[in-house]
């Protein structure tokens, strides 16, 4: 926490919620209690702590078991997945991955590639467009700013269904069906207002003096944005990148509507093929490719956990 830029949107208390302290004293120190009472207190709180940890570990197992079962089953022979529901087995094979890779007519490499293109496009779009808008909202004074800001917040809560049909018609008229453009171009125009809000919160926390000093030195807004604001808001950009990655990778509805030929499918839509009636017997392959589709999300979680936690703690949206 000490090596990076301060995170102004979080309080110190929230910071400490993210870093782990190794201090595990649970005993309450009473000001005037005798030695005996203190010892009894400590024993009671240690019993309580045992109970608590038992409960939390049980809950952890319930939470994680389905995921472990998924991974283990993906390495089991197809006929054993449901006959032996345990996760301890020695009979492991990679056959499911070999078969699953080509089970949807095209190799999974194609779907992974499509998902990657969508993700990269969405990340670039969100980073560029949302940071520009956020700088305007957080640092510039112009006519109608508060009204625009309220509208921007409102669009976060707007159900996208009210724009669904006309958007589809627009993209159809443009001849963009079966291309990635309907899923990327809106991001270039900052339609993911959530990230604007996240960045506004961050920029507001950067000390004003920095911007004033730059002004006095004669820097224009383009320079203040490019050379001062952007470098200082790297943590917010990282949060945006990771969230965009996770959401775009998992997005199902958009690709379902706009991409209807197999060679354009991202991973999410390709996986759907496994539950369509004709191929529903190959559970092993289905599990294997589900695991493949989750690996990038899991890696994003491992690498970016800090930024993810910050992002949701700051804005209150998952």
């Amino acid at each position, binding site marked *: 926490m000490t090596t990076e830029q301060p995170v102004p949107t979080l309080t110190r208390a929230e910071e400490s919620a993210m870093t782990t302290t190794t201090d595990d004293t649970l005993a309450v120190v009473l000001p005037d209690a005798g030695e005996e009472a203190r010892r009894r207190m400590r024993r009671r709180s240690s019993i309580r702590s045992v109970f608590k940890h038992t409960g939390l570990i049980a809950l952890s197992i319930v939470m994680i078991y389905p995921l472990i079962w998924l991974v283990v089953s993906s390495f089991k022979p197809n006929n054993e997945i449901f006959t032996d529901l345990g996760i301890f087995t020695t009979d492991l094979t990679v056959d499911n991955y070999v078969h699953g890779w080509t089970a949807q007519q095209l190799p999974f490499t194609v779907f992974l590639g499509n998902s990657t293109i969508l993700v990269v496009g969405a990340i670039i779009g969100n980073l560029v467009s949302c940071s520009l808008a956020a700088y305007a909202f957080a640092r510039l004074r112009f006519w109608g700013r508060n009204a625009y800001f309220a509208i921007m917040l409102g669009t976060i809560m707007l*159900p996208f269904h009210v724009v669904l049909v006309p958007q589809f018609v627009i993209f159809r008229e443009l001849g963009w069906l079966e291309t990635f453009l309907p899923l990327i171009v809106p991001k270039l125009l900052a339609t993911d207002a959530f990230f604007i809000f996240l960045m506004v919160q961050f920029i507001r926390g950067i000390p004003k003096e920095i911007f004033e000093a730059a002004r006095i030195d004669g820097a224009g807004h383009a320079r203040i944005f490019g050379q001062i604001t952007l470098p200082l808001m790297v943590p917010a950009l990282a949060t945006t990148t990771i969230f965009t990655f996770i959401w775009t990778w998992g997005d199902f509805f958009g690709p379902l509507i706009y991409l209807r030929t197999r060679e354009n499918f991202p991973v999410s839509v390709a996986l759907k093929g496994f539950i369509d009636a004709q191929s529903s017997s190959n559970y092993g392959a289905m599990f294997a490719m589900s695991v493949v589709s989750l690996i990038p999300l899991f890696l994003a979680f491992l690498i970016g956990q800090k930024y993810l936690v910050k992002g949701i703690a700051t804005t209150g949206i998952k």
Partner: protein
Amino acid sequence: MSSIGELRKIAIRPRRTAGAARGRARNPDNKAGYLFLAPWLIGLIVFTVGPMLASLYLAFTDYNLLQPPEWSGFDNIVQMFGDARLWNSLRVTLTYVFVSVPLQLALALAVAMLLDRGMRGLAFYRSVFYLPSLLGGSVAIAILWRQVFGKEGIVNGFLAWFGIEGPGWISHPDYALATIIILHVWTFGSPMVIFLAGLRQIPEMYYEAAQMDGAGKVRRFFAITFPLLTPIIFFNLVLQIIFAFQSFTQAYIVSGGTGGPSDSTMFFTLYLYKEAFTELNMGYASAMAWFLLLIIAAFTLLNFWLSKYWVFYDD
């Protein structure tokens, strides 16, 4: 400060009095402001405001994409009133929203309160509880859910230990929706992280003072923790309800794209999708979309109105 909090701040901000400084002095960055805002403004007009107005128009038309839209007056709205499938989908959605959201938030709050400051294993627990909420929206997890709650899945494997033979939860109209609700509750990790951050902001001295006055655990929760946490609970509630109304992927995948068995998982959004993209009733789907917007807006307003009675702001 949350987005909800920001909106509240804007709403209660005192209006500037007439005759206050106007023009250049108050808005020195007009040109730069609009330049920086240009992509968002264009996006707002082209992809939000324009389409909203267009779908409002389409709601009063008959439109199948192939022929130009034909004005049909209130036909779609009249049809909606008599559409039993639509009311069923609304009932399914309302059940989903008002069972899964409170359950998820209650679990998130309970677990957050168990995770004491600086306790052993805090980082481990937080990661384990948070991970499902990152994966929960994906197709892969919905596919997994079909198997977990399938006839031969691990839930029934577990029940078999106790000699209970469970049904095929996914294929039973009485239980299919419950599995999707459980999937939502399973993702309690992200509100939990928000609650954790909120709990850490409550000054320790409040608890010390209460303890000195002899307040017990329960009393301390209702007198300190809960009131100070109500703004956070409130914005979680508002946003989770709004988002839960729009759930789609899980119902689609768990039911194999059908909303079945016997429409028991036919969410409003799933029905809307079918009307729009399999039946090509784009006019009717637009009318449904506006109906959804009005329902969500009504519940959001109701939520804000009710907040007067239980949300505590110390400003």
